[in-house]
């Protein structure tokens, strides 16, 4: 067990190092003068005087070897200092806090909707395996996966904001601005959760301990509640965390359509404006969150699942 955690931890650190190196290198591989880009990210005012630039270059160590510069950058990043955004001239780390809150709200909302619908749907499909309801559910989930969010989102805006006028079309004002993005974001997780819920429910329904529970006098639904759900939940939990990480930074299209100021939108804006410190910061933060959540899930999964624990 400790061995397993240690291994995952080493991999986690390695990934973070690699990602941070890649992010650090962005100003050096793009077009444009790296020194000027970096100065712009560190100084409150634009520096144009060549003498000043030369002085600052020496002072900030921008003439040192790349490895030294990287360590300096990393040190600042570890303290939360990603520099100043080119467009807003404010520290990038402050922008992240707000954006992360928005993305987290959207992600958790979408996953909650997906989860609450998928569990009964998947369970019902498992119980009615091979019958019409099962086939219909299977097709429904396939269709959900195939829906582009940049198609369904405008359609929903058209219907609920423009034609019916009951929901805001975009922006971030109150809870009502969350509804449409949450619905759009929930569709694909809903499909995958349903498929996994169905599969793991089928496993569970055939599990010997379920029969033993029936033999102790529990009815079908009582045994499902007492023993089925928890066991079926393990695979869904892994999927849940995968989707959480994916939605935290990856809901760029939806956040852009609904003008929801989350991590994805921040990154998109940064790329459009070539806002280097913001790009670097977003990528490091999103990927770090993704791999940390993923690693933690794996560890929790192993701890919760006695059979896996025994093997490792």
């Amino acid at each position: 067990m400790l061995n397993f955690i240690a291994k995952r931890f080493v991999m986690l650190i390695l990934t973070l190092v690699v990602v941070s190196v890649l992010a650090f290198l962005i100003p050096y591989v793009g077009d444009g003068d790296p020194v000027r880009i970096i100065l712009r990210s560190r100084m409150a005012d634009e520096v144009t005087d060549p003498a000043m630039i030369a002085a600052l270059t020496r002072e900030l160590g921008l003439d040192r070897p790349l490895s030294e510069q990287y360590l300096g950058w990393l040190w600042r990043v570890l303290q939360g200092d990603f520099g100043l955004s080119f467009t807003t001239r404010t520290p990038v780390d402050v922008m992240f806090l707000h954006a992360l809150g928005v993305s987290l709200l959207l992600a958790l909302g979408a996953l909650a909707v997906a989860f609450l619908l998928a569990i009964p749907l998947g369970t019902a499909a498992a119980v009615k395996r091979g019958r019409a309801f099962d086939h219909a559910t299977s097709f429904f989930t396939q269709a959900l996966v195939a829906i582009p969010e940049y198609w369904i989102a405008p359609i929903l805006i058209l219907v609920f904001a423009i034609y019916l006028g009951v929901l805001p079309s975009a922006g971030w004002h109150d809870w009502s601005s969350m509804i449409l993005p949450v619905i759009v974001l929930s569709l694909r997780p809903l499909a995958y959760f349903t498929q996994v819920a169905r599969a793991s429910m089928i496993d569970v329904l055939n599990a010997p301990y379920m029969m033993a529970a029936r033999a102790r006098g529990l009815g079908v639904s009582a045994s499902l509640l007492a023993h089925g759900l928890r066991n079926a939940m393990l695979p869904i939990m892994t999927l849940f965390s995968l989707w959480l990480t994916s939605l935290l930074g990856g809901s760029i299209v939806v956040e852009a359509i609904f003008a929801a100021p989350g991590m994805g939108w921040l990154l998109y804006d940064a790329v459009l404006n070539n806002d280097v410190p913001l790009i670097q910061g977003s990528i490091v933060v999103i990927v770090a969150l993704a791999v940390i959540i993923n690693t933690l899930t794996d560890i929790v999964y192993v701890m919760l699942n006695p059979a896996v624990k025994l093997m490792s």
Partner: protein
Amino acid sequence: MTDTTIINSTVIREPGRVRRWLADRHLLTKLGAACFLTILLLLLLTPLISPYDPAAQNLLQKLKWPSAQHWLGTDQFGRDVLSRVIHGGLFSVAVASITIILCAVIGIVIGAVSARKGGIVDEMLMRLVDLLIAFPDVVVAMFFIATLGPGPVTLIIALTAVGWTPFARMMRGLTLEVSSREFIEAAEALACSRWFIIWRHIIPNTLGPVFAMAFLRFGHKLITVGGLSFLGLGVQPPASDWGTMLADARNYMDRMPWLVIAPGLAIFITALSVTMIGKGLEFERNRERRESETT
């Protein structure tokens, strides 16, 4: 298992083989394949069949509702929407196809090598997969766009960079499973080289599930590529595809919902048809498994 393989290959040499082969396909596979092939044909034959030049502007005819001349109406520049929809899939479908093929090939090789080599190689590769699989692919795409600039090559590199991981993971499992069968042991006893075994025995025996996964993932890639085009980070003007059409149409959608609905529907149907193929292949495989278990 070896027996059925032999039987299958003799069946294929018989005259009625196409019909037999078709009869073995799941309904979903057949429907999806019919749909997808039609779409591909339309995309490839565009210049021959599209009623209008998709780029031809006609400002007198702009923003028209569907009519006998323009089945799907016209857009803000008076261009024929039907022609543009037929034309507009080429970029997304091409980028997604190339990506998925690269992902599958890389995943197959890494998965097979990982399983056959075992030990530290296996351990390292699989930990790499564990971590990469958690990377949101749009974010990876953003990184590459920020460094390489937008365009098809960037998209292909970006989506392949993490897209190979599920293939590798699945291939590794399949390889381990196949390796435990007798004919591999026999090949090993005959001192066949590692690559020969992978090439001659393992890859042919694992292609089915790999194809299923490739089709299932293809839809997702298609939607991602369209999404990046929608954001202006994929295909670059003056070229256009379904994603950019959707983005352009948003300003007119209250007046002309068709402009939004048509290109989105095209993506949806294409993605759904490949997903159906993938699901159908998966069902076929499960059915085969069940049959080989009961007999």
